[in-house]
């Protein structure tokens, strides 16, 4: 398994998109840092931007969706799936090695974003706020930042597990990435309507779209009035949906013909 993960990391590290994604993320975060410094009224207060990793928590899913779509679909597109499958490893091991690689990649993205946020804060907002300042009645800025990262990470993996399932269906990387990203935006559009519908049919509170509010709920104590779920319930549902999608992905991958 370690060999397989190393192989996947080798491929990831030799794709130019890996470096372009990282550079783009840092550029976008830096740009938002400047906009927030000079136009806080339009682009949000710096402490809120810091907590949200200067929008890193919104950009990372896009890059990760692209990476997860590609890591499976490219093997079918390039015909390399046969090279992987005929060797001594089992299909399950090959798929799990890809999951592990993507997990490490997502940890890398969040780590880099957090580190870069701290750099932006130190350079642009050193005198504006301290990490120990109150974010709201209950949390300090750094505490809220950590909770947002945890919540975003959990929700990201709920989405990615679905993307990894869909990527099994497509033979073209471009198709898989397009559908993943369009679906991601679609989820947030539907989510707004879903909250209204949930007030009418309460059981809908368990739908995956409602779980997307987990980062908000972790930092806003009253958010459960909107989501109708407690934080432990949301975390449990998030993990549950992730596991279900990954299991389905495993089954589909094992049965897929090459």
């Amino acid at each position, binding site marked *: 398994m370690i060999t397989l993960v190393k*192989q996947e990391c*080798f*491929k990831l590290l*030799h*794709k*130019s998109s890996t470096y372009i994604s990282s550079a783009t993320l840092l550029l976008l975060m830096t740009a938002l840092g400047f906009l927030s410094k000079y136009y806080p009224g339009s682009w949000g207060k710096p402490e809120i931007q810091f907590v949200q990793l200067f929008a890193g928590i919104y950009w990372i899913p896009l890059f990760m969706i692209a990476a997860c779509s590609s890591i499976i679909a*490219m*093997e079918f597109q*390039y*015909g*390399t*799936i*046969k*090279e992987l*499958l*005929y*060797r*001594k*490893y*089992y*299909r399950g091991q090959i798929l799990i090695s890809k999951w592990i690689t993507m997990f490490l990649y997502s940890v890398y993205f969040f780590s880099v974003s957090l580190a870069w946020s701290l750099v932006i804060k130190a350079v642009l907002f050193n005198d504006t706020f301290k990490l120990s300042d109150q974010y709201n009645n209950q949390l300090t800025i750094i505490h809220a930042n950590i909770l947002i990262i945890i919540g975003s990470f959990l929700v990201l993996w709920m989405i990615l597990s679905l993307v990894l399932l869909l990527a099994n269906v497509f033979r073209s990387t471009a198709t898989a990435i397009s559908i993943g990203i369009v679906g991601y935006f679609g989820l947030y559009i539907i989510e707004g309507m879903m909250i209204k519908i949930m007030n009418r049919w309460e059981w809908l509170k368990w739908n995956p779209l409602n779980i997307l509010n987990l980062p908000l709920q972790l930092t806003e104590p009253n958010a459960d009035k909107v989501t109708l779920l407690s934080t432990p319930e949301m975390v449990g549902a998030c993990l549950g949906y992730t596991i279900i999608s990954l299991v389905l992905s495993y089954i589909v991958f*094992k049965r897929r*013909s*090459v």
Partner: protein
Amino acid sequence: MTTSILDIEHLSKSFGHKQVLKDVSFGVQAGHIIGLVGPNGAGKSTIMKAILGLFNYPEGKIMVDGEVVSPTSHQSMDEVGALIEYPGIYPFLTGYQHLHLFSKKTTSDTQVMDIVRKLRMDAYINRKAKTYSLGMKQKLGIALALVNNPRLVILDEPMNGLDPQSNKDLRNLILSYARSGTTFLISSHILSELEKLIDDIVVIDQGQIVYTQSMVTLESGSKKLLAFKTSDDVKASHILAQHGYQLDKSGGVSVIENGQNQMADMINLLTGNGINIEDVQHVHNDLETILLNLLKDDQVKGSK
């Protein structure tokens, strides 16, 4: 004593309602080069994929080096290298990175570069594979199959896209690996190249094995002819037949060679009867002719 490295017993496989393999059975002796030949859609690639454990099969058994192979039983694949249908290449990696990616810990850089040299890939091995031509990709696919020095190598149409020099290099490479004990199962439509390599032949048609035999036996069983072009072919045929020479029905004046009849005697006989000889040729059935005859006649033969 030869040992079997690959055994296929009563293998059947259907895709949907279409049965693509029907009760396929054959064995492969270690160190041999086996040609798997047949028309398009006969089931050659499907057999190869089944050997590599790429799909489930409802009936039959495949054993590589004594171990059963299926999608859930893959350990013997550690000693197998393969190129199936077309080479799987990552465009963002160089040729060398591909070989590095798929080489085992026990495979040294010297071994990797040895294959690169033998296949004359030195000039472009450090270029990204997206710049490779079809032939370059094919060579890389072959190098990937051989890089870990496997005991069994399965090559599906390895000559595709190769120029004559590359074909010769590949032939020499395969022969040198075979001499050191590597077994090859090769499918190819370029039968003129294949017959220079193989020890045994397995012919498949419509999902069924129709012939398995060693090349030595196959060639010894094929007709060798002496074809004459004369000033009067009808008269020449008549005279030769009268003197007990067996004529082939393929047309012209073609005498079946049996080791006893001498060309000089026949020439003397014909010229002595006033027939001018314009040309004489030894005609030997090549693999292509033999295969076409087999498929035409739909002969089903037992294995060796």
